[in-house]
């Protein structure tokens, strides 16, 4: 049993090594077999590991593979831990990951860099598994960075287009801001508590820090910085929409189902620390709320099918942060899981649509694809229902729990709840806007749409549809991890409020139906008023964050870089260089190429040395 814990990240890593070292020489079938097969095997291993833990959620499997590094008193083990929380994570990562890999074997079939794709995907899964299985924060950080690297490689997968490279760079640099914050947090924790082992750390924190102590606030703030960066929350959310430059399965795997949830996982994993800093916890909730509203408004105005989904991802993770902020750890993780199902489903379906329309991304150039793309339509419908938290779909249960927890939160609980409900209205609106625009109405001129789907692409969609529908009934073994108070208990909420929560997404859907479904109010008429137009532009640009960042960070940085083009500090070094060069020029004069001159100088030097020693001896 314990051996198989190490096997879990080892399998995708092995797949990566095989694919990377073969240098793209393997035939495609073998690549697909290795790439998807390694994840499939990992899923079986994960299932085997998870079953006992699902049965008894207090079970914790620990395995120390070897001592990673030992410096002085510091010792970092390459140790893996499997508890309830990581069980959920590994099942999501390997399960959804496998489905996406399977889908990719069909989706990427014509790509010349087939092998490279699966190699990086496997590495990504391996990193993510290390991240969630790590028993100390340093190892977690390794997985964290591995995930960041892979996302960089995958966003820039089609690197021939400089735009994609720029998007990859943007994602990398933005998350780097968060990563730096997290690294600082790790250093602070280590210097203060003397350990990075998560269990020890939590115990030490509880023992040493009082609730609301400055150190706890500082540490959690720094960790939160990391989480915000990786999970694309305010104010570091700008990279995610651009990250849609990669192939669609990548968006599904990284930017919806797994990687962005790393921040959620980090906060959930260190929830003990956050409980010690209630103010930071409140901040988490506020960030989540702000992000989900912001992303929701933005998603309403977008034209690009993948950008809409990207903003919806940001929004949904905002919900998770909201849940984390109000202490509903278990609900957040639950939402993480259901979100993985329906967001993977939506992205994969979007991939099918995009592929069938020859890489057309603009939803207003689609339209009426209901009949041509039945599977995609079904997927979208189910995915959107789950996304909008339609009653009894998976998203309903998880979102409901988060909102209820928010309502119960002592500080500003009502406001948080209200914001969440407004977000739900927005979710309903933009998700069905997508469905109506793409699948209903007349065909907007785009021709020959054929659903290019074989078994490898269709099967994951069906499985995910099922999961998106009934995923809400799955139970999670996280009770032991979060303790009693993090658990979604029996909520005592009035039926009226419940009705509001159920009605909110339906309201959004209805509005969407009115505008886009039957065209009762044409979008153009709304946009005719100046205020609406301005708002639309403002939202379309993602609340101007990119614009602000461009002005506040990028432009000054570029200005500084231009200013320092010739590197002022370098002049000190180049002085040395110039000195050396001058000396060299002078000495090079002596290098005449004449043998006789060389011999003469050797003998002359000999004479000088001998004379010096002779005279020295005489003196």
């Amino acid at each position, binding site marked *: 049993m314990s051996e198989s814990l190490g096997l879990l990240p080892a399998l995708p890593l092995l797949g990566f090594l095989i694919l990377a070292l073969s240098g793209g020489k393997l035939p495609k079938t073998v690549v697909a077999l290795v790439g998807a097969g390694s994840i499939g095997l990992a899923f079986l291993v994960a299932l085997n590991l998870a079953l006992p833990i699902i049965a008894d959620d207090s079970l914790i499997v620990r395995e120390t593979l070897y001592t990673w590094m030992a410096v002085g008193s510091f010792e970092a083990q390459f140790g893996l831990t499997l508890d309830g929380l990581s069980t959920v994570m590994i099942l999501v990562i390997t399960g959804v990951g496998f489905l996406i890999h399977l889908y990719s074997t069909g989706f990427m079939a014509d790509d010349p860099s087939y092998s490279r794709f699966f190699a990086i995907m496997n590495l990504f899964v391996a990193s993510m598994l290390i991240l969630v299985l790590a028993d100390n924060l340093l190892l977690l950080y390794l997985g964290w960075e591995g995930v960041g690297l892979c996302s960089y490689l995958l966003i820039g997968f089609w690197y021939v287009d400089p735009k994609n490279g720029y998007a990859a760079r943007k994602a990398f640099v933005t998350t780097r801001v968060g990563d730096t914050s997290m690294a600082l947090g790790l250093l602070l924790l280590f210097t203060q508590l003397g350990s990075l082992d998560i269990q020890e750390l939590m115990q030490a924190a509880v023992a040493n820090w009082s609730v609301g102590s400055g150190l706890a606030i500082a540490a959690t703030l720094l960790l939160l910085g990391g989480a915000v960066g990786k999970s694309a929350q305010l104010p570091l959310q700008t990279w995610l929409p651009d990250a849609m430059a990669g192939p669609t399965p990548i968006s599904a795997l990284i930017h919806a189902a797994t990687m962005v949830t790393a921040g959620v996982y980090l906060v959930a994993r260190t929830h003990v620390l956050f409980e010690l800093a209630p103010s930071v916890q409140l901040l988490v909730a506020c960030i989540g709320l702000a992000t989900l509203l912001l992303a929701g408004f933005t998603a309403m105005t977008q034209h690009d099918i993948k950008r809409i989904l990207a903003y919806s991802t940001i929004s949904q993770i905002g919900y998770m942060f909201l849940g984390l902020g109000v202490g509903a750890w278990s609900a957040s993780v639950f939402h993480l899981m259901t979100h993985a199902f329906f967001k993977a489903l939506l992205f994969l379906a979007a991939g099918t649509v995009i592929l069938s329309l020859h890489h057309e991304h603009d939803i207003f150039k689609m339209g009426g694809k209901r009949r041509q793309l039945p599977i995609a339509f079904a997927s979208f419908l189910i995915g959107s229902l789950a996304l909008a938290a339609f009653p009894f779909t998976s998203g309903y249960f998880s979102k409901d729990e988060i909102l209820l927890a928010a309502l119960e939160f002592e500080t500003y609980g009502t406001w948080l709840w209200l914001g969440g409900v407004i977000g739900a209205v927005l979710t309903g609106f933009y998700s069905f806007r997508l469905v109506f625009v793409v699948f209903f109405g007349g065909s907007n001129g785009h021709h020959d749409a054929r659903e290019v789907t074989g078994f490898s692409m269709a099967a994951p969609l069906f499985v995910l549809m099922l999961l998106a529908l009934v995923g809400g009934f799955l139970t999670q073994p996280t009770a032991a991890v979060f303790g009693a108070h993090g658990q979604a208990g029996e909520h005592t909420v009035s039926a009226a409020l419940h009705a509001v929560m159920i009605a909110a997404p339906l309201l959004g859907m209805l509005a969407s139906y009115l505008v886009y479904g039957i065209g009762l109010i044409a979008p153009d008429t709304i946009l005719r008023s100046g205020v609406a137009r301005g708002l639309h532009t403002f939202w379309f640009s993602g609340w101007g964050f990119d614009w602000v960042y461009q002005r506040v960070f990028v432009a000054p940085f570029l200005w500084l870089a231009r200013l320092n083009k010739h590197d002022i500090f370098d002049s000190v070094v180049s002085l040395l260089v110039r000195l050396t060069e001058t000396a060299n020029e002078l000495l090079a004069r002596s290098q005449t190429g004449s043998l006789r001159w060389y011999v*003469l100088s050797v*003998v002359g030097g*000999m004479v000088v040395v001998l004379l010096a020693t*002779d005279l020295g001896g005489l003196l």
Partner: protein
Amino acid sequence: MSELFYAGGLIAIVSTLLVIVQSNVVHALIYLVLSLLAVAVVFFSLGAPFVALLEAIVYAGAIMVLFLFVVMMLNLGQASRDQERAWLPPRVWIVPCTLVLVLLGMLLPQIFEIAAVTNSPFVEVGVKAVSAELFGPYVLAVELGSFLLLAGLISAYHIAKR
């Protein structure tokens, strides 16, 4: 035997001097052979007949023959002798000679100072003693020498190949 030493030494010095002032390569080579033979005589007078004859066989008889052989291949004519003379105006000798005289001026007094003490009687060290030494403690040096010769053989073949 000491007469032989001084005669040989004198001939060696004179003929060596003649080597470096010659303008004709062939004449210089002849003087060099003479100088080497004179050194061989010096060896003989020092009780080292084996190396004396090796000096004659290898140095004078083989190495210098190679030189002569190359000179024949180059077949330098009168023009090169004139050129040689043009390259050697008296002034080019001044600096080297001064330097070397300074060196000798420092070296020779020290030589005479250090070694004037002991003079062992003449003992001939024959072939057998040298061979025993050579294939006893110095056998590794012999192997190295053979390596060196092999390397020289290969590189000379390679370099001189067209």
